[in-house]
């Protein structure tokens, strides 16, 4: 594998580690299987790209994209909490609705960002190649996000969120308003996924309405891989594991795609991801957020 392909894998792995962190929040912390992410990822990309093209500051555009993602999460949470719609179905409904909304936002299926200023532009003039700047920028961003998320999850408020997912009855008895925690957690989770979409658009130079397909599975694959490699109960390590899981997954994928003997093409990516998650589901002893959902047992 060339250095270029390797850096590219790291870069995309870092982008999707934001998805992994979001998926970790919904699936693991809140015990809320949320498929909204397949819609909030392209939502983040669509909002950022459209705003940047119309001349808005890229940082502001990214922030607005995160707010949009948070709103998508709130819609799913609202459907579930207020109307008691099954979490999985509620999230699918939001996801489907977002497909149309994303098309409306962009006005067309994709928006190119090639000559536009992005949050990365100022760093391209520091003497490093673009292919090097992108992963470094993303790595710094991820360090900040992981540290903030860690501080949040070990706070009194974050602990209340963890209790909400782990034992809602006990949480309520301790005075925790569980629905408020679900709203906050889902908003945060989808804001992170939208941030991933915003970064995807700015590092790849485009936003595409179909770019969200399979986001949830990629996020889950990263979470599972991270948890399998790092068995720890320390929150900072668990969060870091999500990031490393995402990067390793992309590097492994790049290796597979660059091995001619396997005969894989880039378009096989979703199939490979699905197979990987299925293997993780079947393997005994692997902690898996989907296991409790699909098999009915406790993960």
């Amino acid at each position, binding site marked *: 594998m060339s250095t270029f392909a390797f850096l590219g894998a790291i870069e995309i792995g870092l982008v999707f580690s934001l998805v992994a962190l979001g998926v970790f929040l919904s699936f693991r912390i809140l015990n809320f299987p949320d498929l909204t992410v397949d819609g909030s990822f392209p939502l983040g990309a669509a909002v950022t790209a459209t705003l940047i093209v119309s001349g808005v500051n890229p940082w502001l555009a990214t922030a607005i994209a995160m707010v949009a993602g948070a709103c998508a999460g709130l819609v799913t949470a609202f459907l579930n909490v207020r109307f008691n719609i099954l979490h999985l179905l509620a999230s699918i409904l939001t996801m489907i609705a977002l497909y149309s909304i994303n098309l409306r936002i962009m006005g067309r299926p994709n928006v190119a960002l090639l000559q536009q200023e992005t949050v990365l532009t100022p760093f391209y003039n520091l003497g490093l190649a673009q292919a090097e700047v992108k992963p470094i920028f993303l790595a710094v961003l991820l360090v900040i996000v992981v540290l903030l998320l860690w501080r949040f999850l070990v706070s*009194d408020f974050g602990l209340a969120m963890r209790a909400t997912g782990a034992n809602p009855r006990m949480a309520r008895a*301790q*005075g925790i308003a569980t629905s408020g925690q679900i709203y906050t957690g889902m908003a945060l989770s989808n804001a992170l996924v939208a941030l991933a979409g915003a970064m995807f658009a700015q590092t790849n130079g485009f936003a595409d309405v179909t770019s969200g397909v399979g986001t949830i599975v990629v996020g889950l694959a990263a979470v599972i891989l991270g948890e399998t490699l790092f068995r720890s109960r320390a929150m900072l390590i668990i969060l870091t594991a999500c990031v490393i899981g995402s990067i390793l997954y992309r590097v492994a994928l790049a290796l597979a795609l660059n091995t001619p003997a396997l005969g894989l093409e880039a378009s096989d990516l979703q199939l490979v991801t699905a197979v990987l998650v299925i293997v993780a589901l079947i393997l005994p002893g692997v902690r898996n957020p989907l296991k409790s959902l699909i098999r009915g047992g406790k993960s």
Partner: protein
Amino acid sequence: MISLSDVHVTFARGTPLETKAIRGIDLSIPAGEFVAVIGSNGAGKSTLLNVLTGDAPLERGRVVIDETDVSTWPAPRRAGMVARVFQDPMAGTCEGLSIEENMALAAARGSRRGLGAALTHVRRDSFRERLAELGLGLENRLGDRMGQLSGGQRQAVSLLMATLADMRILLLDEHTAALDPRIAAFVLELTRRFVESFKLTALMVTHSMRQALDYGDRTVMLHEGKIVFDVSGAERDALDVPHLVELFTKVRGEQLDDDALLLG
């Protein structure tokens, strides 16, 4: 002072499954009193607790805690006044979280949960100190997952957790029913100790007539959603299990089913 007046609770109202769980209960518990509530299955004991916590919506009546009418308050809002220990040791704690994390959750009961660290050195030290009171050696296992403890240990920790924050009343929902007799006795003694040393107002639901007479200051018997018997003081001291059985039989107007209550 806790007072219930004319409390009615009906589940699934207007459906064929309609159940009148509480049919008019008036009950005043002065501060510092420890009340044992007894009754057979379906007598409304658990519903009575849920009325106090805010988990069971009232059809009629009022719940007043220290002169505040909390009848319409949802459970989380009442949590600062009401502490609860569940029957199922799994229900009252988070098994995936550590002992100290569970304690931090309980210590913040009823107060605003902010973004400050949940586990500080000060808190850890006080948790360690409190755990040592149990005499179970748990003070050295703060970071262990709650799920690694036995049912009895978890129940003892649940009880301890209930006392970490202020309350107006402690509710004990058959909190020793799921434990083996030796551990149950330990948890009951612990309950007595906490109620005495913290001067708590407590309401303990039990299946056991022995416990209903041996623990607390007052015994209340529920039957079909009503209070049928309420005794305290010298009158209560003179009572023994056979008397209670006799009373119960009279109330039910039928022969007592051996399985209905544990006499021991």
